[in-house]
């Protein structure tokens, strides 16, 4: 990265953070909308790079979808204010406001832009898209949501996130679909309690960070780049643990928030929804394991023409593996 661009991007990053804070801490719907607009405007310079045609196209697509959603959001706010005394309209207006926020986030059924755009971004921009950009729409969702509509959306999220990812070979699209699936869990956790959503979101963003940083360091964008012979054993182990943790397998960190959500589901007798959560999780873990298993068996595919020289950047990787493995158990020592 050239230094010129770097300082500019720092500026826009700073404004990005502030925009989210504006959006979530305002006491009027207008303030929320303003925050969303500033979010959009400051994210576009981050992802556009005029030397690369693909990233120009990506930033254009992002701009179009997000501005459409923002316009809709503003319009619905105005309708809501004008029909303030008519409570019969609450249902429909909440559905419409939720749909525009869902489109902002990239949740089904308005998610079609999400894998496209993710394919065109670099890893760090992807990280911002998948984690930070979801904060303000979700918090706004939690202010005024329609339970029945949202449950329907959750089910669609889960199913599309699991089924869409089965046929992918690009790592970015894979993480995009997994992000859509996790959106389903996160929206449901909003309906349980905001604290729980915060917990889930923090753990999810930590896991995504560990994986994306690993892919970024190794410069990997596609699945066939993973079958490399001379990867360090600890890197493979870290990859395995992070993927399993993202899928929600028990001793790892990613199981904890999902466990709490399932607990809530079962206590309140949401049996059918539990079934859908579980089965889609299974499909997701299937395609995670499909990525990493071959590097762990004794006989595995080896691409002999790629020679990866790894820098000895072990401490971060070791630390992240350790956190993924032990944090669930250690947290019981601290919090219970």
């Amino acid at each position, binding site marked *: 990265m050239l230094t010129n661009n770097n300082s500019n991007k720092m500026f826009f990053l700073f404004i990005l953070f502030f925009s989210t804070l504006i959006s979530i801490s305002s006491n009027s719907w207008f303030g929320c909308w303003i925050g969303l607009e500033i979010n959009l405007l400051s994210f576009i310079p981050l992802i556009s790079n005029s030397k690369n045609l693909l990233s120009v196209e990506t930033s254009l697509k992002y701009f*179009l979808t997000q501005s459409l959603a923002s316009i809709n959001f503003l319009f619905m706010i105005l309708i809501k204010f004008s029909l303030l005394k008519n409570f019969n309209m609450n249902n429909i207006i909440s559905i419409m406001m939720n749909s525009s926020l869902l489109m902002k986030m990239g949740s089904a059924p308005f998610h079609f832009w999400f894998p496209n755009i993710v394919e065109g971004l670099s890893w760090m921009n992807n990280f911002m898209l998948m984690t930070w950009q979801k904060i303000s729409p979700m918090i706004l969702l939690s202010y005024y949501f329609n339970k029945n509509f949202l449950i329907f959306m959750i089910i669609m999220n889960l199913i599309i996130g699991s089924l869409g990812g089965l046929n992918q070979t690009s790592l970015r699209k894979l993480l995009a679909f997994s992000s859509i699936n996790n959106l389903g869990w996160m929206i449901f956790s909003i309906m349980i309690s905001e604290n729980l959503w915060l917990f889930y979101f923090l753990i999810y963003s930590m896991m995504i960070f560990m994986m994306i940083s690993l892919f970024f360091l190794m410069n990997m964008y596609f699945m066939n780049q993973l079958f490399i012979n001379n990867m360090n054993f600890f890197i493979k182990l870290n990859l395995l643990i992070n993927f399993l943790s993202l899928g929600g397998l028990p001793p790892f960190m990613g199981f904890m928030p999902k466990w709490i959500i399932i607990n809530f589901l079962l206590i309140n007798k949401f049996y059918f929804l539990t079934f859908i959560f579980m089965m889609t999780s299974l499909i997701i873990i299937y395609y995670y394991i499909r990525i990493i298993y071959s590097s762990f068996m004794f006989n595995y595919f080896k691409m002999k023409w790629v020679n990866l020289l790894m820098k000895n950047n072990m401490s971060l990787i070791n630390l992240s593996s350790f956190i993924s493995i032990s944090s669930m158990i250690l947290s019981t020592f601290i919090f219970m």
Partner: protein
Amino acid sequence: MCFNSFFFLFFFMLINYFFFVYFIMNGLSVFFEWEIISFNSMSIVMSILLDWMSLLFMMFVSLISSVVIFYSKSYMNSELNLNRFIILVLMFVFSMVLLIISPNLISILLGWDGLGLISYCLVIYYQNLKSYNAGMLTALSNRIGDVMILMVICWVMNYGSWNYIFYFDFMKNDYVMFIISFMIIIAAMTKSAQIPFSSWLPAAMAAPTPVSALVHSSTLVTAGVYLLIRFNYLLIDMFFFKVLLFLSILTMFMSGISANYEFDLKKIIALSTLSQLGLMMSILSLGFPDIAFFHLLTHAMFKALLFMCAGVIIHMMNDIQDIRYMGGLSLYIPLTSLCLNISNLSLCGIPFLSGFYSKDLILEMVSFNSFNLMVFILFYLSTGLTVFYTFRLIMYVMINDFNLMMIYNLYDEDYIMLNSMFVLLFMSLLSGSFLSWFIFSYPYMIYLPFNLKLMVIYVSILGSILGFMVSNMGIYSLNKLLLSYNLSSFLCLMWFMPNLSTYGLSYIYLNFSQILFKNIDMGWSEIYSGKGIFNILKNYSVFYNIYQMNNFKIYLFSFILWFMILFIFFFI
């Protein structure tokens, strides 16, 4: 390792001997009890019962095992993993001791299961195909007995604790005790290889000879008899005891006949063990537990000695066990043939050797108390058959012409093996009288007419003459044997029971499971789970991808369409 364990076990035997004498002279018995846990109405206690019976049996077991370990120092000296062997034998002795001293079903189960498992490990010791098959047969037959004892444990929980000896006097006519007695009898029948379960004992001769001497002659197979002796108060009026009588008499008879057709040295001795076990079980089921115990102990002595002599002979014949290759050995290996002859004659019941005291007492008790004709005939017939195969064995191995198989290997000076055999020789000469003076504080009153008293001798002489005649094989003997092929194959293959209990039991199930495997495991369950679901999901994913790969304008338009629909349906 051999010497250490030999000395330890010998010392243990001496301790047991002194305690036995003290206890039986003073009529003492000691009961240790340690209550481990007591919850709701069950109490789990670990108890140890030391009375004269358990001390005596422990003494004999430790004597035989110490001598066998000493013997195996020379017998198995070419074995690389001799320590493993010795450790297995020691674990076996420990399980047996646990079984002997326990008045409590849980520790009986521990000893019983330990015996079964370790005898499996010892039978498969040589690790060839025959040993594996034999070990599987042994382990699975013994497993039936283990299951029976587990169910007994379950049923005895009705009474509140697992110390069964306290409940005999009070609960004799209970329905629960009826079921318990049935299961105990079946467990003892599997361990002591009575008729439905008798196929494992000749097959278990694939074990090394010291293992056969210790396990299959005196300790493992007598564990069943010992269990029934302990449970004798319970079982004495039960119907199943009569069933046991019938089956054990048939066992005795059948194995006596089969031993006459056998040409494998160890199998003959195994079938002779089976016959004597049938004798023990039958006299036990007639209601004389102390005579059964007496015969158990004397039989242990001379049978172990017999196995050890067989081991020496097998070593000399360069590991050939077929008696048709042997002959005339009494001229060349005097000490071993001395031991062989004395143990064989003691087995037949020749007067004043150790086997005579127990066997003759058994036969006289059978004649004195009036039992039915079949019992009487089969007892005496089996005694005659014992003499028959014994004399046949002696003729083949010792007396007939020397077959020149191994002329340079006739080595009788292996004093390690010989010393261990001499210890047992001494005991097999004297233990009959010694035990009868200790165990029976007053002799049994037996008053028989003259010919009935001599019936044993008549039958023995008849058997010995037949044994002599059968072993004179001429050049056309094989042709003449073929005339009775059907009958002799029936009698020789143990009345086809091994086939019934192995092939007959498993054929239907294996056939059925092949059908199930082909149709369900590799058939329908692949299409309803496994591959079928994978194909469904893959098709859905491909279908979804067609939607995903679209123009961008269409995505935006779909959103607008959604809003238009919402507007139209809810605002107008």
